[in-house]
């Protein structure tokens, strides 16, 4: 359902979309069923002159059946949904890819994003790191780990195209991951109200092929001293 509205550009995007579709099918069935029965009853039992309503307490088993059985079926559907939700959640939020070498730091503040990329040495927190503002550069088909921090208030690091969202909390470092599988440029939004400039902190994530990314690093690290000395 979602792909048609927002391109799916990360490996787990399709899992989340499938979960949404699963839920959509299950609840859609119940929703349509209920509404159809509901409106049919309204039409079927409309007041007719001289016809008195039936006296149904709904306390006898034979009558209760009509709600207890559907109600057990709903429970079954819930189990399926829980199973799907837990699976996706574990994959997206709990398991970090072991082979992930690419680590970036995402620092949020009122009202801008700054991103620390590892420099040519490929290691974060060395003095050849590349810091950019409001523009994150990552390599396609590469599992990327981000360390999310905030300087002041709550922000939320959200890339709809990746189906990625995680609040940034001052005083905490939150680790997450994504693996883009489409090159291109996608929106980064702040999804947690963070003051007057909440709408004014847009950022972009640039997903590049390996060689483009290497070229970008090389070009940036030529000037990395400048960017490193005045963060």
């Amino acid at each position: 359902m979602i792909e048609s509205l927002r391109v799916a550009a990360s490996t787990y995007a399709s899992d989340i979309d499938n979960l949404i579709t699963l839920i959509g099918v299950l609840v859609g069935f119940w929703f349509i069923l209920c509404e159809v029965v509901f409106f049919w009853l309204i039409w079927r039992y409309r007041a007719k002159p001289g016809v008195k309503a039936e006296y149904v307490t709904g306390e006898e088993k034979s009558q209760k059946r009509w709600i207890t059985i559907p109600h057990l079926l709903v429970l079954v559907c819930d189990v399926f949904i829980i199973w799907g939700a837990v699976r996706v959640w574990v994959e997206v939020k709990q398991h970090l890819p072991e082979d992930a070498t690419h680590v970036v730091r995402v620092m949020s503040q009122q009202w801008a994003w700054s991103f620390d990329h590892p420099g040519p040495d490929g290691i974060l927190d060395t003095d050849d790191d590349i810091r950019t503002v409001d523009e994150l550069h990552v390599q396609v088909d590469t599992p990327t780990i981000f360390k999310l921090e905030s300087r002041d208030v709550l922000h939320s690091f959200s890339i709809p195209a990746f189906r990625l969202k995680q609040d940034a909390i001052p005083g905490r470092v939150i680790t997450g991951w994504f693996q883009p599988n489409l090159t291109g440029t996608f929106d980064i939004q702040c999804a947690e109200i963070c003051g007057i400039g909440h709408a004014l902190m847009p950022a972009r994530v640039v997903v590049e092929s390996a060689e483009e990314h290497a070229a970008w690093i090389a070009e940036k690290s030529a000037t990395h001293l400048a960017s490193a000395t005045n963060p």
Partner: protein
Amino acid sequence: MAQTVPSEAHGHDAHHHVETFWSKYVFSTDHKMIAKQYMFTGLAMGAIGAFFAYVFRMQLAFPGMSVPGYGMVGPNEYNMLVTNHGTIMIFWVAMPVLIAAFGNFLIPLMLGCDDMVFPRINRLSYQIFLLSAIVLICGFFVEGGGFGGAWTSYPPLSANAKYNLTPLGQSFWLVAVALEFVAFLLGGINFITTTMNSRAPGMKMTDIPMVIWMIVIASILFMVSVGPLIAGAVMLFMDQQVGTHFYDPTTGGDPILWQHLFWFFGHPEVYVVLLPAMGITADVMATFARKKLFAYRTVLYTAIGTGVLSFTVWAHHQFIAGIDPRMAHVFTITTLLISIPIAEMCFVYIATLWGGSITLTTPMLWALAFVAEFLIGGVTGIFLGASGADIYFHDTYFVLAHFHYTFFPIAIIGTYAGITYWFPKMFGRMMNDTLGKIHFWGTIIPFNLIFIPLFILGAAGQHRRIYDYSLFPELATPELQAVRVFATVSLLVMLAFQAVFIFNFVTSLRRGKKAGENPWKANTLEWSAASPPPHGNWPEGLPSVYRGPYEYAHPDREEDYWPQHLPN
């Protein structure tokens, strides 16, 4: 003692009934007057909330345009508008109208009492509520403008003026909310004790009309859940004005703590306003389907079960807010479990129609609409309760549309069902049914046309509380903008149709057809009193109860209704 009651009632009518304007309308301890005060205050606040919605919807549809009747909307004003729209609609409309107004009006009448058990505490509760509303409104105009940190008011943004830039607005907002809580604690004690202790002779617990049960369960939920938030509000106020660091991580505080304190109250709060609306719907549907409520006990138990479960699900509002990911599993399971009692309630309501004799009066239309629309709100909630799917939907317009599909049926549809149903009892006259139906369709159709588009925007990844999407290339597309404009236009249509209701209400007050004691041929006790009931409700002596509230179409009786107070 059957004789003592009237004399008592008289004694007390006689000796404090010099009615001046002030004692009758302002400082009255009569539960019916307090109910009307709550209702009109709530509806007035509702008008403010609706105006705010109009302003920011206009800004979203036509960014940067000067909104007629308001002017240019800056980002800080936008935040202030959305924040207070939410705060007002939940705390100053849904709660006062659904719980306080209908609770005050119905509980003594439906239980056969002459008044609440603590009339003066009742009056005090309204006065504190009024004060809270005034404080809130004052907060819009103080130096620095009104608070704009969203109705959830997450710190550190809300805890420090250097972040939210509203040094006074933040505290006015907080104090107003705290006062409002105090008002409802006082009111809630009244509702609960009255229902527990003062039921009419012969009224067993299963003879209590469902709407009373629901209001009382809601009051209990409120009293038991609001405490942590009051404590949290005290801490937040200290952070704002004294300079403590309860929510400041740099000094050992924790911003997440507030989110837990808030949502531990905030989720039961959803059911605090939902249950009374459910109860109103149950009574209205039973009356106009001429049908006994299907499985009364089941409804009661599911309501209680929902109430208890609602204390175990709060963190599903925080899935991606930085809580430990392992906790998400617990709250996903509890959240999906709570769909069971709610689904059961909906089934019961549908089953109640079975074999009925349904007349589509205005109140009945509203009641049926409540069920039909609330189902949408219910099923879309599943997407958000499932942690995996919430990763995408959290804080998008999908969430917004979802909870408007719950809160609109609750606060607006439920309220209109209640007002149109009990208007004859409140004011002694009937409302115009034709105008009522015009107003109904003019509200329901645009309502769906507002929020179905917002589901689409949310599914497209549009986030909330952003006053202008032009900076986000993915969201600034003409297609999505067209959807926003469509939603806004629908809103304008819906607001326009509310004029019909106001006109109908005002004219019916004076020129409406005189309503007898029991215009709807309903069973519950309030219809055995005069319309409108005098002070003391039954001056000739309080009624006794002989049967349940929903004995419609009983085989042993040729009329299709059997009022509770008739011996046979």
